[in-house]
């Protein structure tokens, strides 16, 4: 009887473990797959990377929801990992909330069917920051790691919209070079921002905000990727958010 009970226990644990080892049951298959890691309460370990330590994020339950399809929603696990399958090809917006309060969103564009996107996101109690993004194209075509690279920006497609995070390397508020966070871009990106609207974090914006842009400023750039090769890329910005001077 003991042996039978033990056998049942072993089978139960093994079955449960095998079920859990499969893909996320809450995510439908097909379309685009997104794998992400949320780094919370983060501390910078390298000043040269241009990222500085900031106020600690409020610890809590982080939920990621797809704006275009709110039924696609996952809770970030204890170690910060999450996965969403069945995302729409073309592009989508991820909305991040901490303990039910929305703290920010990330828009990902120019995504081909069958692509796996890997992102590293930093979440604080005030904002969400895309630290790194990589794409794996399951079909072996396009701009994925398995295909031939035609653009130095991961996920970048000339003529399509793009969102970039990074630090100003040089230039002025109307034209500057951007050092993109993480490994998303292999080189500096030229940003034409003469016609862009400027916003400062914690400030309503305007001309005062625009003048805050200087070398080393941490910015979020939204706009259009006008041209991109393996050695150069140009973005016409429609919005520049200065996150930190």
């Amino acid at each position, binding site marked *: 009887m*003991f042996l039978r*009970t033990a056998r049942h226990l*072993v089978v139960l644990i*093994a079955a449960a473990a095998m079920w859990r080892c499969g893909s996320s049951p809450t995510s439908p298959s097909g379309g685009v797959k997104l794998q992400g890691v949320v780094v919370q309460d983060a*501390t910078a370990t390298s000043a040269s990377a241009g990222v500085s330590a900031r106020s600690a994020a409020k610890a809590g339950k982080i939920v990621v929801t797809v704006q275009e399809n709110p039924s696609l929603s996952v809770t*970030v696990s*204890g170690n910060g990992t999450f996965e969403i399958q069945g995302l729409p090809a073309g592009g989508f917006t991820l909305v991040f909330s901490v303990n039910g309060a929305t703290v920010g969103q990330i828009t990902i564009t120019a995504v081909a069917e069958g692509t796996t996107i890997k992102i590293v996101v930093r979440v604080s109690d005030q904002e969400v920051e895309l630290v790194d993004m990589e794409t794996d194209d399951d079909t072996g075509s396009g701009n994925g790691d398995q295909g031939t690279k035609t653009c130095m920006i991961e996920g970048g497609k000339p003529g399509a919209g793009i969102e970039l995070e990074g630090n100003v390397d040089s230039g002025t508020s109307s034209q500057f070079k951007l050092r993109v966070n993480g490994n998303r871009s292999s080189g500096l990106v030229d940003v034409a921002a003469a016609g862009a609207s400027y916003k400062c974090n914690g400030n309503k914006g305007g001309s005062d905000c625009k003048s805050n842009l200087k070398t080393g400023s941490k910015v979020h750039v939204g706009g259009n990727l006008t041209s991109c090769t393996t050695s150069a890329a140009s973005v016409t910005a429609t919005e520049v958010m200065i996150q930190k001077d």
Partner: protein
Amino acid sequence: MRLAWTLGAILLLSHPAGASAAARARPAAKAKAKARADGTDLSASYSFLRSGEAHLHGADLSASFPLQRSWRLLGDLSVHSGSFAGADLKQVNFMGGLRRLFGGRTWQPFGQAMIGGSHATSRFSDVLASSQTGWGGALGAGVDYRLSPRWALRGQGDYLLLHWDAGWDADPRLSIGLAYRFPR
């Protein structure tokens, strides 16, 4: 989550009436089982952990000390690492609890319940790092295949039930390795 804990407790603590009768009918087997239960044992295993969405690999070290009959006091330490979406992950689990041995000559199954914690670290490209600690426990079962009077091949599966800031996570852990039992 509560169901998993309850189920594990029932299975670990179950003591059907027919079981003791069967044991009395086989005193020799019982004596052998008791003898096998004697002495401290140590084990070292390769271990796989599914933590959140990540697949981590590492090592599991455990020690158990005899209490009475088939019950043993258990200490368990496991370290796992891996990468997910470009970030490097590391997780250290430290737990203690009770293990119950079941009869058997060559094959000796066991079930166990532990409480403890886990420390998880996420690091991205030497630029960002964050860590946090979760608390909870684990329910598990395994089996020893005796290679000699002292050595055994051990296979084990656990369900780690941990409460983090983000809520409860239930992560499976599978281990396989060697166990050595010291004479008492």
